[in-house]
């Protein structure tokens, strides 16, 4: 690894003056040697021998001296903070491997995906770079991760490229660019994506960068060409009513691209077994460019309560060729279970008239009451609700239901406010917590709000410099979350960051994926502790999990399709969760979306930290030398002066 480095730099060259102690060691040895006394019967004969003359002749150090001398020099060198300066540029290659990169396009006469095109572009680009450059390959979906080892040469990078695989989730490209750019490691960042760069003016300054900070240069290689795509953007189950109206499944179909296209949507019921090949129903309709059409399938009355349906969309008719760049987004699954029973009570000063957009969340039934009305609700009435959401108010005592407090008053029984902030920036977050999954935390608007005094049973999820703005935890078996920033009204795609955060919090409070009729690939499902779970994936493979009481496990749903979760030993499924790849931004393949990034990003760390520090090796050497030093102790006892 050190072969990638050239010159050695010292952080504190002045410390080398401590090497002046080396002669002291020699002197100590000389002194020790000259002070080796031995009493003899008489010096009558010995005094006739020649006396010592020169230092060189006298100084015959033992092996132990060299060990100690080496240890001293290593210690001094380590204290001087040596580091190896890297040779050549260090380049991070960030590969967009999101769902849209699977879009097929015609290149010449060969059909290939954007992902393959991206790989070829990287190969071409690296051929023009210096042979000394070192590459590290990263993938942006489902979240930023390294592919292969760091500091690869070109051949290593090409091998790592072969390992890279495209994902069926959305990317985290902008966040990944910032994260890599601010890291002190790379000189250049190459982004290979199907998005076009929209260069922001000015630098992205690191939060705590000392000046002058080093800049990471950004380059973007845009691959892929515009390709029309028909896709499923949503699937929802509409339960039947008491009047005998049968339930329906609504499928929203959109077309990315110009014109209008005819399509056929087919419904396949799926029990616990494999999907049927013959559709139970099929509907034909048309979708216009940029707009969607929704088709409905009426379910038969005998449809099982926990039945899963698969919907497949195919373009047909004249002009259908070449309008389906992505096939992964043509299929979706929906479960008739789960969403019907989830209901939330919104307690807001605004009262019953306004659910603050929460009613727009599919399968979430929201009742709104004023704070005064809430006080009058009986325990039995509260039992009807799966969730309690308090907006700008708080209950007098901690409820026995999962509860979300949004900007609560300072005095509340769950998350007391530690203060207010007017200008904040997300500083840290619990990256492994389900609440932060699929969230671009850098983009969380933390302009104002309150920071919490996080109780011992809870965890700070998102922090600004002033404190925690989102906290969550479980107390006596009930989950509670608090948001110090405004989440409402829920505006869906208009405020994607807040909407994802809101959905994540509601999902987590509800205990998993019950909140919606389906979740997205990469989402997590919570498995409660104290039970043994069997999870059957869409491909039919089952996995067993035995969880200790009090623990829980977040199961990541990586494949699209139905996940059947049952307790081991029980035939009945506890939950059926459908997982879909509905990412409108990824399915929009007809237009090249912008990627707003700066041309350079200021790095966080000082330059010295870019180099490979050598002091740990030297410190290790010192320890080893000191450990072996007793082995070199002279076997002969030194005779002290009597």
């Amino acid at each position: 690894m050190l072969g990638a480095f050239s010159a050695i730099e010292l952080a504190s060259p002045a410390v080398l003056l401590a090497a002046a102690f080396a002669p002291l060691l020699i002197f100590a040895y000389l002194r020790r040697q000259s002070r080796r006394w031995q009493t003899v019967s008489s010096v009558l004969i010995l005094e006739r021998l020649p006396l010592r003359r020169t230092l060189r002749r006298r100084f015959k150090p033992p092996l132990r001296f060299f060990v100690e001398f080496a240890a001293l020099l290593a210690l001094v060198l380590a204290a001087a903070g040596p580091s190896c300066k890297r040779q050549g540029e260090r380049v991070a290659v960030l590969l967009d491997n999101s769902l849209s990169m699977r879009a097929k396009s015609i290149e010449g006469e060969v059909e290939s995906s954007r992902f393959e095109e991206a790989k070829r572009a990287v190969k071409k680009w690296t051929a023009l770079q210096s042979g000394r450059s070192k590459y590290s390959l990263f993938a942006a979906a489902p979240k930023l991760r390294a592919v292969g080892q760091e500091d690869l040469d070109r051949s290593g990078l090409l091998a790592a490229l072969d390992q890279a695989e495209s994902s069926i989730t959305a990317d985290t490209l902008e966040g990944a660019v910032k994260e890599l750019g601010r890291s002190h490691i790379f000189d250049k960042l190459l982004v290979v994506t199907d998005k076009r760069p929209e260069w922001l003016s000015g630098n992205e300054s690191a939060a705590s960068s000392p000046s002058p900070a080093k800049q990471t240069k950004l380059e973007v290689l845009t691959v892929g060409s515009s390709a029309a795509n028909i896709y499923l953007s949503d699937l929802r189950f509409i339960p039947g009513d008491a009047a005998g109206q049968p339930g329906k499944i609504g499928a929203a179909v959109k077309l990315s691209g110009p014109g209008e296209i005819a399509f056929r949507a087919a419904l396949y019921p799926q029990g616990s077994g494999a999907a049927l090949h013959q559709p139970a129903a099929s509907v034909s309709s048309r979708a216009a460019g940029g707009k969607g059409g929704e088709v409905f399938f009426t379910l038969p009355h005998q449809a099982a309560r926990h039945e899963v349906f698969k919907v497949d969309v195919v373009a047909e008719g004249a002009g259908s060729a070449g309008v389906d760049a992505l096939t992964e987004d043509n299929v979706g699954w929906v479960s008739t279970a789960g969403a019907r029973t989830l209901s939330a009570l919104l307690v807001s000063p605004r009262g019953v008239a306004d659910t603050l957009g929460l009613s727009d969340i599919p399968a979430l039934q929201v009742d709104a009451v004023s704070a005064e009305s809430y006080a009058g609700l009986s325990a039995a009435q509260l039992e009807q609700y799966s969730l309690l959401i308090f907006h700008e108010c708080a209950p007098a005592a901690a409820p026995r239901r999962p509860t979300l407090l949004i900007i609560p008053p300072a005095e509340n029984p769950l998350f007391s406010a530690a203060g207010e902030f007017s200008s904040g920036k997300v500083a840290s977050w619990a990256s492994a917590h389900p609440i932060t999954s699929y969230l671009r935390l850098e983009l969380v608007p933390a302009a104002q709000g309150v920071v919490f005094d996080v109780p011992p049973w809870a965890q700070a999820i998102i922090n600004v410099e002033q404190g925690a703005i989102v906290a969550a935890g479980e107390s006596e078996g009930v989950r509670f979350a608090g948001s110090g920033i405004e989440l409402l009204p829920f505006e869906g795609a208009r405020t994607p960051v807040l909407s994802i955060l809101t959905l994540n919090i509601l999902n987590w409070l509800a205990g998993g994926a019950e909140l919606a009729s389906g979740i997205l690939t990469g989402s997590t499902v919570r498995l409660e502790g104290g039970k043994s779970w069997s999870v059957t994936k869409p491909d039919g493979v089952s996995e067993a999990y035995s969880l200790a009481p009090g623990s829980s496990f977040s199961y990541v749903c990586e494949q699209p399709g139905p996940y059947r979760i049952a307790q081991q030993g029980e035939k009945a499924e506890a939950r059926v969760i459908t997982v879909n790849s509905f990412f409108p931004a990824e399915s929009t393949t007809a237009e090249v979306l912008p990627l707003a990034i700066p041309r350079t990003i200021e790095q966080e760390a000082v330059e010295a930290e870019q180099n490979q520090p050598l002091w740990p090796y030297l410190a290790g050497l010192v320890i080893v030398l000191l450990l072996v030093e007793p082995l070199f102790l002279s076997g002969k006892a030194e005779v002290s002066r009597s």
Partner: protein
Amino acid sequence: MQDSFSPTFFRQLQQLKIRTRRAFLGSRQGMHRSARKGHGLEFADYRQYTPGDDFRYIDFGVYARTDRLYVREFREEQDLNVMVLLDASTSMGYPEGSNKFELARALALALGYVALTDGDTVTFCLLGQRTTPRYTGPQSLSKAMKELHGARPEGVFALLSEVRAAMASQRIPGKCFFVSDFLYPLPEQFDALDYLRSRNFEICVLRVLAPQELQLDAGLADVVVDAETGQEVELALDRSSREQYALALAEHIEGLEHYCRRAEIEYLLVSSAEALNDIVLRKLPQIGVLR
């Protein structure tokens, strides 16, 4: 020390006698030919009869031939005054672990025992420390052993004056065993030996050196300190210096040997690593000290 003196060794010692080249006057009857003429078994000379002589000693054969009265004189056999000078200076305790003093003390006791079993009078003198009473008879050995047992090599002295002091109480000449490492300047040794000679003692020098002294120890420290004078000497030990040491030591040994030869002093150099019985039973008879 007592381990060396096994019953077998005692029996072997009882077979030995101290040999002197000349006759000494003794204090009482003993086993050694004395300078005094009188009653004895060994014929010494004739003397003209004088009134008062014992008729039994008139040699009538001579009277018949010469018509004069002569009486036979016999050499009287008397005891031998044996003086054992044991160097108990600090130098005898070094090099540490060399058992130099222990061997010297054992030698002194063995010689003392030989003399005592022969009916001689023995005095042990720990140079620099004390002088024991005169012992006679083999039964005195236990007293002598007890006296010497507690002795430690300690003390610094001028050799001549100490020998003078030790010999001050000795009125009768005899045999003197001088056991030491003789690591003194040669003139000082010669003066001391000359003094002993002037006191008409027949001297036997037993020089005990440690193996480390006979051949310089390679692991010797760089600074050596004289155990007696405290003088420090810084050394640069290498092969040539070891050779020079050997030459210097040989010169010193030769100096004493030469003096002893010239002065008819019996001389034996032994290493402290040697076995006591080998020295006493083989080497001392070889040089004629014992028979």
